[in-house]
């Protein structure tokens, strides 16, 4: 595997590993690992180090909604312009251009159903290019960012086996 890709993959799974530990895992030079990470932070390949939190477990009420958005394009306003306008709201968790009946999939994060519904009505539906929106509230999440939010397999192995 390409050195850079390998380091990125390791970090994607566990951002808390130190360059020293990554060097030990891969057999690369520690200094080199450090330099690669720095370079990738600087060129924007590594966007951010985050923590994946199960907010439901933390007892925090957070409402997510997936909004399907259909837009009308014009000579002046293409997909990128509209998407950027939507993406800049802090309430917006993700914006994706999608294939199918709708143009964008927008994930909105709020404190309550009302909160999210008003945000969509006031900020998204009112954008001139937006033709219609279709809101789905998330009731429960089972997997986020490739991580299961429920216990899969317990380690049932015996302490010793030949």
């Amino acid at each position, binding site marked *: 595997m390409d050195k850079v890709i390998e380091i990125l993959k390791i970090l994607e799974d566990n951002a808390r590993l130190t360059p020293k*530990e990554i060097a*030990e*895992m*891969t057999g690369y030079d520690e200094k080199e690992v450090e330099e690669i990470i720095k370079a990738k932070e600087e060129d924007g390949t590594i966007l951010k180090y985050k923590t994946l939190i199960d907010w439901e477990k933390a007892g925090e009420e957070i409402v997510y909604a997936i909004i399907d958005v259909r837009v009308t394009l014009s000579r002046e306003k293409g997909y990128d312009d509209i998407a950027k306008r939507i993406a800049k709201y802090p309430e917006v968790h993700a914006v994706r251009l999608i294939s199918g009946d709708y143009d964008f999939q927008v994930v909105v994060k709020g404190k309550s159903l009302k909160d999210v519904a008003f945000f969509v009505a006031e900020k998204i539906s009112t954008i001139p290019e937006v033709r219609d929106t279709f809101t789905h509230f998330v009731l429960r999440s089972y997997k986020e960012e490739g991580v299961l939010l429920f216990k*899969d*397999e317990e380690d049932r192995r015996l*302490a*010793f*086996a*030949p």
Partner: protein
Amino acid sequence: MKRTGGSRLPRRISERVDSIKPSGIRKFFDLVMGRPDVISLGVGEPDFPVPWRIRDEMIYSLEKGITSYTSNHGLPELREAIAEYYRKFNVRNIDPNDVIITTGVSEGIDIALRALLNPGDAVLIPEPAYVSYKPLTILAGGDAIAIPTTPEFKPTYELLARYAKECDPKAIVINYPNNPTGVSYSRKDLEEIADLAIEFDMVVISDEIYAELTYSGKHISIASLNGMEDRTVILNGFSKAFAMTGLRVGYVIAPSDIAEAMLKIHQYCMLCAPITAQIGALEALRGCEEELDNIRAEYMRRRNFFVKRLSKIFEIRKPDGAFYAFPKIEGYGLNSEEFAERLLLEKGVAVVPGNAFGDCGEGYIRCAYAVTMEKLKEAVDRIEEFVKKL
């Protein structure tokens, strides 16, 4: 009917069985009991669950009610898939009829030895070796000849020939990547074994269960070497690469006459391998390449990390494959068992004493790195603390 109670036989148990020692690991089980803080590096078993697509396929087959016996040989699609799969390790033109699906590699070892041995036939077993080769040789009526391979852990021609000249062996059992040492054999290493096998007219029983978990170099089956196809019994299975340990499914690929003899034993003692496991095995070969790549990469990282840290404490040979490290613990004034026992009691880290894998394993311990990085880090820290106090 007269009932006097109790058997009047002075010894009920067969002398042969009586002559076998129970596994040395047994007593360590009791020491672990009731200690939740123990990090076990004592398990010869992957920590990954069986890939979901395999589990799903097995569940689906159960829903459809597929629970019958299969043919003694095993499912034809699975045998064909295995014949095709082994091209990966350079063995071509395998006739699916020479493939038998077994109840794990353990059964494969047993029926291979029983198919080959006459009373008193010698079997060469380079040690340290997996724990069952020796007892199964004895149970099959053979004479197990242990050959110490320390400190390089490679059975060279010169070494093997010295023993072969004395005992006129019928077979040799090799296992690479090796449990417990993690050492694998290069083409040159295998050629030396092949030369010996041809010279002394031996069958090679080649346990390749860890083939997929090879990190340095590429696994080559000894059966792919010139003249070896007709004298190699390949044993492999799904326990290690696909974590299907408890499902008990493996296979043998053998020259026709040996396969036929093994099948005879298999049909009477096992009938067939569990059908659900066979269905899972088929899915493993069909659709799990990507998962396997990820698993292999993860083990390799753990190996690199673990061995690097251990090498600051012990003399250790970098393992080429499997998920074992086999450091030398000499110089700390403890033998293998004392070391393992005190490490467990004082620091809560479980390892297996090296002498469980043959007398020459004395002075070593086997550490399995089939645990998460976090646990591995913690374990190695504890080992470090432990030896500092010795």
